[in-house]
Protein backbone atom coordinates (compact mmCIF):
# COMPACT_ATOMS: atom_id res chain seq x y z
CA UNK A 1 0.00 0.00 0.00
CA UNK A 2 2.74 2.38 0.97
CA UNK A 3 4.52 1.92 -2.30
CA UNK A 4 1.36 2.56 -4.28
CA UNK A 5 0.75 5.68 -2.24
CA UNK A 6 4.32 6.81 -2.86
CA UNK A 7 3.93 6.30 -6.60
CA UNK A 8 0.42 7.41 -7.36
CA UNK A 9 -0.61 9.84 -4.64
CA UNK A 10 2.25 11.41 -2.76
CA UNK A 11 4.01 13.12 -5.74
CA UNK A 12 0.78 14.84 -6.76
CA UNK A 13 0.13 15.94 -3.20
CA UNK A 14 3.57 17.51 -3.19
CA UNK A 15 2.94 19.23 -6.52
CA UNK A 16 -0.28 20.65 -5.16
CA UNK A 17 1.34 21.70 -1.91
CA UNK A 18 4.03 23.78 -3.62
CA UNK A 19 2.83 24.78 -7.09
CA UNK A 20 5.57 27.37 -7.58
CA UNK A 21 8.24 24.75 -7.09
CA UNK A 22 6.34 22.55 -9.53
CA UNK A 23 6.32 25.37 -12.08
CA UNK A 24 10.04 25.84 -11.60
CA UNK A 25 10.68 22.17 -12.22
CA UNK A 26 8.46 22.27 -15.29
CA UNK A 27 10.30 25.28 -16.68
CA UNK A 28 13.70 23.70 -16.12
CA UNK A 29 12.43 20.56 -17.79
CA UNK A 30 11.16 22.53 -20.76
CA UNK A 31 14.47 24.38 -21.17
CA UNK A 32 16.48 21.16 -21.02
CA UNK A 33 13.97 19.52 -23.35
CA UNK A 34 14.29 22.34 -25.83
CA UNK A 35 18.02 21.81 -26.04
CA UNK A 36 17.53 18.08 -26.53
CA UNK A 37 15.03 18.97 -29.21
CA UNK A 38 17.55 21.19 -31.00
CA UNK A 39 20.09 18.40 -31.11
CA UNK A 40 17.44 15.96 -32.30
CA UNK A 41 16.46 18.47 -34.96
CA UNK A 42 19.93 18.26 -36.47
CA UNK A 43 19.56 14.49 -36.72
CA UNK A 44 16.09 14.76 -38.24
CA UNK A 45 17.20 17.21 -40.94
CA UNK A 46 19.86 14.90 -42.24
CA UNK A 47 17.81 11.75 -41.82
CA UNK A 48 14.85 13.22 -43.69
CA UNK A 49 16.91 14.15 -46.68
CA UNK A 50 19.30 11.26 -46.95
CA UNK A 51 18.09 8.57 -44.52
CA UNK A 52 21.55 8.71 -43.01
CA UNK A 53 21.64 8.57 -39.26
CA UNK A 54 24.28 11.21 -38.60
CA UNK A 55 26.25 10.03 -35.62
CA UNK A 56 28.41 13.15 -35.92
CA UNK A 57 25.65 15.59 -35.00
CA UNK A 58 26.81 15.72 -31.37
CA UNK A 59 30.39 16.52 -32.26
CA UNK A 60 29.21 19.06 -34.85
CA UNK A 61 27.58 20.93 -31.95
CA UNK A 62 30.89 20.93 -30.05
CA UNK A 63 32.89 21.77 -33.15
CA UNK A 64 30.68 24.75 -34.02
CA UNK A 65 30.90 26.13 -30.48
CA UNK A 66 34.68 25.57 -30.37
CA UNK A 67 35.17 27.32 -33.69
CA UNK A 68 33.17 30.30 -32.53
CA UNK A 69 35.07 30.61 -29.26
CA UNK A 70 38.40 29.91 -30.94
CA UNK A 71 37.90 32.59 -33.59
CA UNK A 72 36.88 35.07 -30.93
CA UNK A 73 40.01 34.23 -28.95
CA UNK A 74 42.04 35.31 -32.00
CA UNK A 75 40.77 38.80 -31.36
CA UNK A 76 37.91 38.92 -33.85
CA UNK A 77 34.72 40.71 -32.80
CA UNK A 78 31.99 38.31 -31.73
CA UNK A 79 29.74 38.89 -34.75
CA UNK A 80 32.58 38.50 -37.21
CA UNK A 81 33.50 35.27 -35.46
CA UNK A 82 29.87 34.17 -35.73
CA UNK A 83 29.74 34.82 -39.46
CA UNK A 84 33.06 33.08 -39.98
CA UNK A 85 31.80 30.11 -37.98
CA UNK A 86 28.78 29.91 -40.27
CA UNK A 87 31.21 29.90 -43.19
CA UNK A 88 33.19 27.10 -41.53
CA UNK A 89 29.99 25.06 -41.12
CA UNK A 90 29.27 25.59 -44.81
CA UNK A 91 32.79 24.44 -45.68
CA UNK A 92 32.24 21.40 -43.48
CA UNK A 93 29.02 20.59 -45.36
CA UNK A 94 30.82 20.92 -48.69
CA UNK A 95 33.65 18.72 -47.44
CA UNK A 96 31.34 16.04 -46.13
CA UNK A 97 29.44 15.94 -49.42
CA UNK A 98 32.57 15.86 -51.55
CA UNK A 99 34.71 13.50 -49.49
CA UNK A 100 32.23 11.26 -47.69
CA UNK A 101 28.81 11.15 -49.32
CA UNK A 102 29.71 11.38 -53.00
CA UNK A 103 32.14 8.45 -53.03
CA UNK A 104 29.64 6.39 -51.03
CA UNK A 105 26.57 7.14 -53.12
CA UNK A 106 24.18 4.18 -53.49
CA UNK A 107 25.85 2.29 -50.65
CA UNK A 108 23.61 0.74 -48.00
CA UNK A 109 22.53 3.01 -45.16
CA UNK A 110 24.70 1.17 -42.65
CA UNK A 111 27.82 2.10 -44.62
CA UNK A 112 26.88 5.77 -44.51
CA UNK A 113 26.16 5.43 -40.81
CA UNK A 114 29.64 4.00 -40.27
CA UNK A 115 31.06 6.87 -42.30
CA UNK A 116 29.45 9.37 -39.93
CA UNK A 117 31.10 7.58 -37.00
CA UNK A 118 34.38 8.07 -38.83
CA UNK A 119 33.51 11.71 -39.30
CA UNK A 120 32.88 11.99 -35.55
CA UNK A 121 36.38 10.82 -34.69
CA UNK A 122 37.87 13.02 -37.36
CA UNK A 123 36.14 16.08 -35.90
CA UNK A 124 37.19 15.17 -32.36
CA UNK A 125 40.81 14.85 -33.44
CA UNK A 126 40.76 17.89 -35.68
CA UNK A 127 39.02 20.01 -33.04
CA UNK A 128 41.52 19.05 -30.35
CA UNK A 129 44.40 19.64 -32.73
CA UNK A 130 43.28 23.14 -33.67
CA UNK A 131 41.62 24.41 -30.51
CA UNK A 132 43.12 22.24 -27.77
CA UNK A 133 41.26 19.93 -25.47
CA UNK A 134 40.65 22.13 -22.44
CA UNK A 135 37.17 23.50 -21.68
CA UNK A 136 36.46 27.06 -22.74
CA UNK A 137 34.02 29.75 -21.81
CA UNK A 138 31.25 30.57 -24.28
CA UNK A 139 31.35 34.24 -25.33
CA UNK A 140 27.79 34.78 -24.18
CA UNK A 141 27.87 38.49 -23.39
CA UNK A 142 29.88 39.37 -26.49
CA UNK A 143 27.15 37.82 -28.60
CA UNK A 144 24.63 40.05 -26.88
CA UNK A 145 22.91 37.24 -25.03
CA UNK A 146 21.44 38.45 -21.74
CA UNK A 147 22.44 37.18 -18.36
CA UNK A 148 20.79 37.56 -15.02
CA UNK A 149 17.34 36.52 -13.92
CA UNK A 150 13.69 37.44 -13.97
CA UNK A 151 11.82 37.20 -10.67
CA UNK A 152 8.13 36.42 -10.70
CA UNK A 153 6.15 36.76 -7.50
CA UNK A 154 3.54 34.06 -7.33
CA UNK A 155 1.48 33.14 -4.29
CA UNK A 156 3.96 34.79 -1.89
CA UNK A 157 6.81 32.83 -3.40
CA UNK A 158 9.45 33.77 -5.95
CA UNK A 159 9.86 31.98 -9.25
CA UNK A 160 13.30 32.63 -10.71
CA UNK A 161 13.81 32.35 -14.45
CA UNK A 162 17.15 32.81 -16.25
CA UNK A 163 16.95 35.47 -18.96
CA UNK A 164 19.21 33.33 -21.11
CA UNK A 165 16.69 30.49 -21.01
CA UNK A 166 13.92 32.79 -22.19
CA UNK A 167 16.03 34.01 -25.10
CA UNK A 168 17.03 30.46 -25.94
CA UNK A 169 13.37 29.47 -26.02
CA UNK A 170 12.49 32.34 -28.35
CA UNK A 171 15.36 31.58 -30.72
CA UNK A 172 14.48 27.89 -30.75
CA UNK A 173 10.84 28.63 -31.58
CA UNK A 174 11.80 30.95 -34.43
CA UNK A 175 14.26 28.47 -35.86
CA UNK A 176 11.91 25.51 -35.66
CA UNK A 177 9.01 27.42 -37.23
CA UNK A 178 11.29 28.56 -40.02
CA UNK A 179 12.53 25.06 -40.72
CA UNK A 180 9.04 23.59 -40.67
CA UNK A 181 7.84 26.12 -43.24
CA UNK A 182 10.97 25.64 -45.30
CA UNK A 183 10.50 21.89 -45.43
CA UNK A 184 6.80 21.88 -46.19
CA UNK A 185 6.22 24.89 -48.40
CA UNK A 186 9.24 25.53 -50.56
CA UNK A 187 10.83 24.02 -53.62
CA UNK A 188 14.08 23.12 -51.89
CA UNK A 189 12.19 21.69 -48.93
CA UNK A 190 10.18 19.53 -51.31
CA UNK A 191 13.36 18.51 -53.09
CA UNK A 192 14.83 17.46 -49.74
CA UNK A 193 11.87 15.22 -49.05
CA UNK A 194 11.96 13.90 -52.59
CA UNK A 195 15.59 12.88 -52.22
CA UNK A 196 14.74 11.10 -48.98
CA UNK A 197 12.02 9.09 -50.72
CA UNK A 198 13.66 8.00 -53.96
CA UNK A 199 17.06 8.97 -55.33
CA UNK A 200 16.41 7.87 -58.88
CA UNK A 201 13.08 9.63 -59.18
CA UNK A 202 14.57 12.75 -57.62
CA UNK A 203 17.30 12.77 -60.23
CA UNK A 204 14.77 12.35 -63.03
CA UNK A 205 12.92 15.52 -62.06
CA UNK A 206 16.16 17.43 -62.13
CA UNK A 207 17.16 17.48 -58.49
CA UNK A 208 20.90 17.43 -57.96
CA UNK A 209 21.66 15.10 -55.08
CA UNK A 210 25.00 16.75 -54.39
CA UNK A 211 23.46 20.17 -54.00
CA UNK A 212 20.73 18.86 -51.70
CA UNK A 213 23.23 17.10 -49.48
CA UNK A 214 25.28 20.26 -49.10
CA UNK A 215 22.17 22.24 -48.20
CA UNK A 216 20.96 19.74 -45.67
CA UNK A 217 24.35 19.32 -43.97
CA UNK A 218 24.71 23.07 -43.88
CA UNK A 219 21.27 23.41 -42.28
CA UNK A 220 22.24 20.75 -39.73
CA UNK A 221 25.48 22.68 -39.15
CA UNK A 222 23.54 25.88 -38.45
CA UNK A 223 21.28 24.04 -36.02
CA UNK A 224 24.42 22.62 -34.41
CA UNK A 225 25.87 26.11 -34.04
CA UNK A 226 22.76 27.48 -32.33
CA UNK A 227 22.58 24.41 -30.11
CA UNK A 228 26.27 24.73 -29.28
CA UNK A 229 25.90 28.35 -28.23
CA UNK A 230 22.89 27.61 -26.05
CA UNK A 231 24.30 24.49 -24.41
CA UNK A 232 27.72 25.87 -23.70
CA UNK A 233 26.28 29.11 -22.36
CA UNK A 234 24.98 26.99 -19.49
CA UNK A 235 28.19 25.05 -18.91
CA UNK A 236 31.47 25.09 -20.82
CA UNK A 237 32.57 24.43 -24.35
CA UNK A 238 34.14 21.01 -24.05
CA UNK A 239 34.17 17.69 -25.79
CA UNK A 240 32.13 16.24 -22.94
CA UNK A 241 29.18 18.05 -24.50
CA UNK A 242 28.90 15.47 -27.24
CA UNK A 243 27.78 12.91 -24.67
CA UNK A 244 24.71 15.04 -24.11
CA UNK A 245 23.97 14.56 -27.78
CA UNK A 246 23.22 10.94 -27.02
CA UNK A 247 20.15 12.24 -25.19
CA UNK A 248 18.85 13.02 -28.63
CA UNK A 249 18.43 9.29 -29.29
CA UNK A 250 15.44 8.75 -26.99
CA UNK A 251 14.03 12.03 -28.28
CA UNK A 252 14.25 10.74 -31.83
CA UNK A 253 12.67 7.44 -30.98
CA UNK A 254 9.88 9.20 -29.16
CA UNK A 255 9.23 11.82 -31.80
CA UNK A 256 10.01 9.87 -34.93
CA UNK A 257 13.17 10.13 -36.99
CA UNK A 258 11.54 12.01 -39.82
CA UNK A 259 9.43 14.57 -38.03
CA UNK A 260 10.46 18.10 -37.11
CA UNK A 261 7.48 18.59 -34.77
CA UNK A 262 8.28 15.14 -33.40
CA UNK A 263 11.79 16.23 -32.45
CA UNK A 264 10.38 19.25 -30.62
CA UNK A 265 7.58 17.49 -28.77
CA UNK A 266 9.82 14.48 -28.06
CA UNK A 267 12.51 16.75 -26.66
CA UNK A 268 10.08 18.56 -24.42
CA UNK A 269 8.53 15.33 -23.14
CA UNK A 270 11.94 13.85 -22.35
CA UNK A 271 13.16 17.07 -20.70
CA UNK A 272 10.09 17.54 -18.52
CA UNK A 273 9.77 13.81 -17.83
CA UNK A 274 13.35 13.61 -16.59
CA UNK A 275 13.06 16.55 -14.24
CA UNK A 276 9.66 15.60 -12.83
CA UNK A 277 10.67 11.95 -12.54
CA UNK A 278 13.86 12.77 -10.70
CA UNK A 279 12.33 15.23 -8.26
CA UNK A 280 9.05 13.53 -7.46
CA UNK A 281 9.64 9.84 -8.04
CA UNK A 282 13.42 9.59 -8.01
CA UNK A 283 13.91 8.89 -4.33
CA UNK A 284 11.75 5.76 -4.62
CA UNK A 285 14.57 4.24 -6.62
CA UNK A 286 17.38 5.91 -4.77
CA UNK A 287 17.71 8.95 -7.02
CA UNK A 288 19.66 9.51 -10.20
CA UNK A 289 16.91 8.20 -12.43
CA UNK A 290 17.24 11.09 -14.88
CA UNK A 291 20.28 9.30 -16.28
CA UNK A 292 18.24 6.43 -17.66
CA UNK A 293 14.57 7.43 -17.56
CA UNK A 294 14.72 8.86 -21.09
CA UNK A 295 16.04 5.62 -22.53
CA UNK A 296 13.42 3.68 -20.63
CA UNK A 297 10.65 5.81 -22.13
CA UNK A 298 12.20 5.35 -25.57
CA UNK A 299 12.31 1.60 -25.13
CA UNK A 300 8.63 1.50 -24.22
CA UNK A 301 7.89 3.51 -27.36
CA UNK A 302 9.88 1.15 -29.53
CA UNK A 303 7.71 -1.69 -28.32
CA UNK A 304 4.39 -0.07 -29.03
CA UNK A 305 4.90 2.64 -31.61
CA UNK A 306 8.16 2.09 -33.50
CA UNK A 307 7.65 4.99 -35.89
CA UNK A 308 7.42 7.43 -32.97
CA UNK A 309 4.73 9.93 -32.14
CA UNK A 310 4.84 11.84 -35.41
CA UNK A 311 6.98 9.67 -37.62
CA UNK A 312 5.81 8.98 -41.12
CA UNK A 313 3.60 5.96 -41.14
CA UNK A 314 5.42 3.14 -42.79
CA UNK A 315 3.35 2.43 -45.86
CA UNK A 316 3.90 -0.95 -47.37
CA UNK A 317 1.78 -2.32 -50.16
CA UNK A 318 1.98 -6.00 -50.72
Amino acid at each position, binding site marked *: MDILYAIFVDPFVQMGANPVFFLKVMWEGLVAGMLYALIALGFVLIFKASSVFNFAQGIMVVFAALTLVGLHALGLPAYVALILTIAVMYALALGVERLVLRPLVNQPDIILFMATIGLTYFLVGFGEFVFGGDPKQMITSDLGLPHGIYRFHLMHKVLIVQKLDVVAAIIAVIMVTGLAIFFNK*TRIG*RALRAVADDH*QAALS*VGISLNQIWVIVWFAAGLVALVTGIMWSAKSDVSFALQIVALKALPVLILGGLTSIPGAIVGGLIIGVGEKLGELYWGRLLGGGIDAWLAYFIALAFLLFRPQGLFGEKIIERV
Partner: protein
Amino acid sequence: MPADSAAVKAASQPEVLLEVDNVSLAFGGVQAIRNVSFDIRKGEIRAIIGPNGAGKTSMLNCINGFYHPQVGTITFKGVKRADMKPHDAAAQGISRTFQNIALFAGMTTLDNIMSGRNLKMNKNFFWQLLYFGPARDEEIAHRGKVEEIIDFLEIQHIRKTPVGQLPYGLQKRVELGRALAAEPDLLLLDEPMAGMNLEEKEDMSRFVIDVNEQFGTTIALIEHDMGVVMDLSNRVVVLDHGEKIADGTPDEVKSNQDVIDAYLGVAH
Protein backbone atom coordinates in the same frame (compact mmCIF):
# COMPACT_ATOMS: atom_id res chain seq x y z
CA MET B 1 -5.20 7.98 -83.76
CA PRO B 2 -6.24 8.60 -87.34
CA ALA B 3 -3.91 6.80 -89.69
CA ASP B 4 -3.67 9.63 -92.22
CA SER B 5 -2.34 12.13 -89.70
CA ALA B 6 0.50 9.74 -88.96
CA ALA B 7 1.17 9.49 -92.65
CA VAL B 8 1.18 13.27 -92.95
CA LYS B 9 3.65 13.54 -90.09
CA ALA B 10 5.92 10.95 -91.59
CA ALA B 11 5.72 12.58 -95.00
CA SER B 12 6.61 16.08 -93.83
CA GLN B 13 9.65 14.65 -92.00
CA PRO B 14 9.87 17.00 -89.01
CA GLU B 15 13.29 17.70 -87.60
CA VAL B 16 15.11 15.13 -85.54
CA LEU B 17 14.87 15.84 -81.80
CA LEU B 18 17.07 13.06 -80.53
CA GLU B 19 19.54 10.95 -82.39
CA VAL B 20 21.05 7.79 -81.01
CA ASP B 21 24.09 6.90 -83.05
CA ASN B 22 25.83 3.54 -82.83
CA VAL B 23 25.39 3.23 -79.07
CA SER B 24 26.81 0.28 -77.14
CA LEU B 25 26.50 -0.35 -73.43
CA ALA B 26 28.01 -3.17 -71.40
CA PHE B 27 27.86 -4.10 -67.75
CA GLY B 28 31.04 -6.05 -67.21
CA GLY B 29 30.73 -8.95 -69.62
CA VAL B 30 27.06 -8.47 -70.34
CA GLN B 31 26.44 -6.58 -73.55
CA ALA B 32 23.13 -4.79 -72.87
CA ILE B 33 23.07 -2.69 -76.03
CA ARG B 34 25.05 -3.35 -79.22
CA ASN B 35 25.55 -0.73 -81.95
CA VAL B 36 22.05 0.66 -81.86
CA SER B 37 21.12 3.71 -83.93
CA PHE B 38 17.75 5.37 -84.32
CA ASP B 39 16.22 8.80 -84.15
CA ILE B 40 13.22 10.43 -82.58
CA ARG B 41 11.55 13.20 -84.56
CA LYS B 42 9.87 16.20 -83.09
CA GLY B 43 6.20 15.63 -82.25
CA GLU B 44 6.05 11.91 -82.83
CA ILE B 45 5.26 9.01 -80.56
CA ARG B 46 8.12 6.59 -80.93
CA ALA B 47 7.73 3.12 -79.47
CA ILE B 48 10.65 0.97 -78.37
CA ILE B 49 9.62 -2.66 -78.20
CA GLY B 50 11.28 -6.01 -77.80
CA PRO B 51 11.19 -9.17 -75.70
CA ASN B 52 12.29 -9.13 -72.06
CA GLY B 53 15.97 -8.33 -71.66
CA ALA B 54 16.21 -6.72 -75.07
CA GLY B 55 17.80 -3.56 -73.62
CA LYS B 56 14.81 -1.22 -73.84
CA THR B 57 15.04 0.21 -70.35
CA SER B 58 18.83 0.39 -70.63
CA MET B 59 18.29 2.49 -73.77
CA LEU B 60 15.97 4.82 -71.90
CA ASN B 61 18.47 5.06 -69.07
CA CYS B 62 21.16 6.08 -71.56
CA ILE B 63 18.93 8.78 -73.03
CA ASN B 64 18.12 10.17 -69.61
CA GLY B 65 21.68 10.02 -68.30
CA PHE B 66 21.44 7.26 -65.71
CA TYR B 67 23.79 5.14 -67.83
CA HIS B 68 26.65 6.33 -69.96
CA PRO B 69 27.18 4.29 -73.12
CA GLN B 70 30.78 3.21 -73.67
CA VAL B 71 30.52 3.64 -77.41
CA GLY B 72 28.43 5.91 -79.60
CA THR B 73 26.85 9.30 -79.24
CA ILE B 74 23.49 10.70 -78.29
CA THR B 75 22.52 14.01 -79.84
CA PHE B 76 19.65 15.95 -78.32
CA LYS B 77 18.33 19.14 -79.93
CA GLY B 78 21.34 19.16 -82.20
CA VAL B 79 23.84 19.12 -79.35
CA LYS B 80 26.08 16.11 -78.91
CA ARG B 81 26.18 15.32 -75.23
CA ALA B 82 29.14 14.27 -73.21
CA ASP B 83 28.45 11.99 -70.26
CA MET B 84 25.70 13.88 -68.55
CA LYS B 85 24.04 13.54 -65.20
CA PRO B 86 20.32 12.82 -64.99
CA HIS B 87 19.54 16.23 -63.55
CA ASP B 88 21.31 17.84 -66.51
CA ALA B 89 19.18 15.76 -68.86
CA ALA B 90 16.13 16.96 -66.96
CA ALA B 91 17.33 20.55 -67.30
CA GLN B 92 17.61 20.09 -71.09
CA GLY B 93 13.98 19.00 -71.29
CA ILE B 94 13.91 15.22 -70.89
CA SER B 95 11.58 13.81 -68.28
CA ARG B 96 10.49 10.27 -67.66
CA THR B 97 8.45 7.71 -65.79
CA PHE B 98 9.73 4.41 -64.47
CA GLN B 99 8.88 0.77 -65.08
CA ASN B 100 8.57 0.18 -61.35
CA ILE B 101 6.93 3.33 -60.17
CA ALA B 102 9.37 5.72 -58.55
CA LEU B 103 7.20 8.23 -56.76
CA PHE B 104 7.90 10.02 -53.51
CA ALA B 105 5.70 7.71 -51.48
CA GLY B 106 5.45 9.81 -48.35
CA MET B 107 4.42 12.97 -50.19
CA THR B 108 0.98 13.92 -51.44
CA THR B 109 -0.04 13.83 -55.10
CA LEU B 110 0.18 17.60 -55.17
CA ASP B 111 3.71 17.67 -53.73
CA ASN B 112 4.83 14.92 -56.08
CA ILE B 113 3.68 16.85 -59.11
CA MET B 114 5.04 20.11 -57.69
CA SER B 115 8.42 18.43 -57.38
CA GLY B 116 8.28 17.92 -61.14
CA ARG B 117 8.43 21.71 -61.48
CA ASN B 118 11.66 21.78 -59.53
CA LEU B 119 13.66 23.05 -62.49
CA LYS B 120 11.13 25.70 -63.45
CA MET B 121 11.46 27.33 -60.08
CA ASN B 122 14.58 29.28 -59.41
CA LYS B 123 14.22 31.58 -56.45
CA ASN B 124 17.30 31.04 -54.40
CA PHE B 125 17.98 29.36 -51.11
CA PHE B 126 17.82 32.62 -49.20
CA TRP B 127 14.27 33.46 -50.26
CA GLN B 128 13.25 29.86 -49.83
CA LEU B 129 14.51 29.95 -46.28
CA LEU B 130 12.34 32.96 -45.54
CA TYR B 131 9.38 31.69 -47.57
CA PHE B 132 8.53 35.26 -48.21
CA GLY B 133 8.29 37.62 -51.15
CA PRO B 134 9.48 36.14 -54.45
CA ALA B 135 9.68 32.54 -53.27
CA ARG B 136 6.08 32.65 -52.13
CA ASP B 137 4.79 34.29 -55.32
CA GLU B 138 6.68 31.71 -57.34
CA GLU B 139 5.16 28.88 -55.34
CA ILE B 140 1.66 30.18 -56.01
CA ALA B 141 2.27 30.67 -59.74
CA HIS B 142 3.53 27.13 -60.15
CA ARG B 143 0.72 25.74 -58.10
CA GLY B 144 -1.65 27.03 -60.81
CA LYS B 145 0.18 25.10 -63.49
CA VAL B 146 0.15 21.96 -61.38
CA GLU B 147 -3.61 22.25 -60.87
CA GLU B 148 -4.00 22.29 -64.67
CA ILE B 149 -2.10 19.03 -64.89
CA ILE B 150 -4.19 17.54 -62.10
CA ASP B 151 -7.35 18.51 -63.99
CA PHE B 152 -5.94 17.13 -67.21
CA LEU B 153 -5.19 13.75 -65.65
CA GLU B 154 -8.49 13.71 -63.74
CA ILE B 155 -6.92 13.12 -60.36
CA GLN B 156 -8.49 16.01 -58.44
CA HIS B 157 -9.92 13.68 -55.82
CA ILE B 158 -6.51 12.39 -54.69
CA ARG B 159 -4.80 15.76 -54.59
CA LYS B 160 -3.95 15.55 -50.88
CA THR B 161 -3.49 11.79 -50.57
CA PRO B 162 0.00 10.44 -49.86
CA VAL B 163 0.77 8.57 -53.06
CA GLY B 164 2.00 5.48 -51.22
CA GLN B 165 -1.62 4.76 -50.36
CA LEU B 166 -2.93 5.01 -53.92
CA PRO B 167 -3.77 2.04 -56.11
CA TYR B 168 -1.26 1.13 -58.77
CA GLY B 169 -3.10 2.62 -61.74
CA LEU B 170 -3.44 5.99 -60.07
CA GLN B 171 0.22 5.96 -59.02
CA LYS B 172 1.14 5.52 -62.67
CA ARG B 173 -1.01 8.52 -63.49
CA VAL B 174 0.59 10.65 -60.78
CA GLU B 175 3.99 9.69 -62.10
CA LEU B 176 2.95 10.83 -65.57
CA GLY B 177 1.76 14.07 -63.99
CA ARG B 178 5.11 14.63 -62.34
CA ALA B 179 6.89 14.08 -65.65
CA LEU B 180 4.49 16.47 -67.42
CA ALA B 181 4.97 19.14 -64.77
CA ALA B 182 8.47 19.74 -66.10
CA GLU B 183 6.93 20.63 -69.51
CA PRO B 184 9.42 18.35 -71.21
CA ASP B 185 10.42 18.42 -74.87
CA LEU B 186 10.93 14.69 -74.76
CA LEU B 187 8.90 12.45 -72.50
CA LEU B 188 10.18 8.94 -71.82
CA LEU B 189 7.53 6.45 -70.69
CA ASP B 190 8.77 3.11 -69.43
CA GLU B 191 5.86 0.66 -69.66
CA PRO B 192 3.17 3.14 -68.67
CA MET B 193 0.45 0.49 -68.96
CA ALA B 194 2.16 -2.50 -67.39
CA GLY B 195 -0.08 -4.31 -64.95
CA MET B 196 -3.17 -2.30 -65.79
CA ASN B 197 -6.61 -3.61 -66.60
CA LEU B 198 -8.26 -2.83 -69.92
CA GLU B 199 -10.11 0.23 -68.69
CA GLU B 200 -7.00 1.71 -67.09
CA LYS B 201 -5.04 1.02 -70.25
CA GLU B 202 -7.62 2.87 -72.32
CA ASP B 203 -7.47 5.83 -69.96
CA MET B 204 -3.70 5.91 -70.05
CA SER B 205 -3.63 5.61 -73.86
CA ARG B 206 -5.98 8.56 -74.07
CA PHE B 207 -3.71 10.62 -71.81
CA VAL B 208 -0.64 9.74 -73.87
CA ILE B 209 -2.37 10.77 -77.10
CA ASP B 210 -3.69 13.96 -75.52
CA VAL B 211 -0.27 14.90 -74.20
CA ASN B 212 1.16 14.37 -77.66
CA GLU B 213 -1.55 16.28 -79.50
CA GLN B 214 -2.42 19.07 -77.06
CA PHE B 215 1.05 19.90 -75.77
CA GLY B 216 2.96 18.72 -78.83
CA THR B 217 5.26 16.70 -76.58
CA THR B 218 7.50 14.17 -78.26
CA ILE B 219 7.15 10.80 -76.60
CA ALA B 220 9.35 7.72 -76.48
CA LEU B 221 7.41 4.77 -75.18
CA ILE B 222 8.32 1.30 -74.04
CA GLU B 223 5.33 -1.01 -73.99
CA HIS B 224 4.63 -4.70 -74.15
CA ASP B 225 0.97 -4.52 -75.18
CA MET B 226 1.23 -4.72 -78.95
CA GLY B 227 -2.29 -3.48 -79.46
CA VAL B 228 -1.45 -0.30 -77.60
CA VAL B 229 1.87 0.13 -79.39
CA MET B 230 0.33 -0.25 -82.83
CA ASP B 231 -2.48 2.17 -82.02
CA LEU B 232 -0.42 4.87 -80.38
CA SER B 233 2.88 5.09 -82.11
CA ASN B 234 3.98 6.72 -85.34
CA ARG B 235 7.13 4.70 -85.62
CA VAL B 236 8.48 1.65 -83.84
CA VAL B 237 12.02 0.50 -83.16
CA VAL B 238 12.47 -3.16 -82.21
CA LEU B 239 15.34 -4.38 -80.05
CA ASP B 240 16.32 -7.96 -79.36
CA HIS B 241 19.32 -9.10 -77.29
CA GLY B 242 20.60 -5.53 -77.34
CA GLU B 243 20.52 -5.19 -81.11
CA LYS B 244 18.15 -3.30 -83.35
CA ILE B 245 16.29 -5.74 -85.55
CA ALA B 246 13.67 -3.48 -87.11
CA ASP B 247 12.69 0.15 -87.40
CA GLY B 248 9.66 1.61 -89.16
CA THR B 249 5.94 2.25 -89.05
CA PRO B 250 3.82 -0.13 -87.00
CA ASP B 251 2.63 -1.91 -90.14
CA GLU B 252 6.16 -2.42 -91.47
CA VAL B 253 7.34 -3.76 -88.15
CA LYS B 254 4.37 -6.07 -87.77
CA SER B 255 5.16 -7.86 -90.99
CA ASN B 256 8.94 -8.01 -90.44
CA GLN B 257 10.09 -11.63 -90.26
CA ASP B 258 12.91 -10.93 -87.75
CA VAL B 259 10.41 -9.34 -85.38
CA ILE B 260 8.03 -12.25 -85.65
CA ASP B 261 10.91 -14.64 -84.99
CA ALA B 262 12.11 -12.64 -82.00
CA TYR B 263 8.71 -12.69 -80.42
CA LEU B 264 7.70 -16.22 -81.26
CA GLY B 265 11.12 -17.77 -81.13
CA VAL B 266 12.73 -19.83 -83.91
CA ALA B 267 14.76 -22.96 -83.94
CA HIS B 268 18.45 -22.02 -84.20
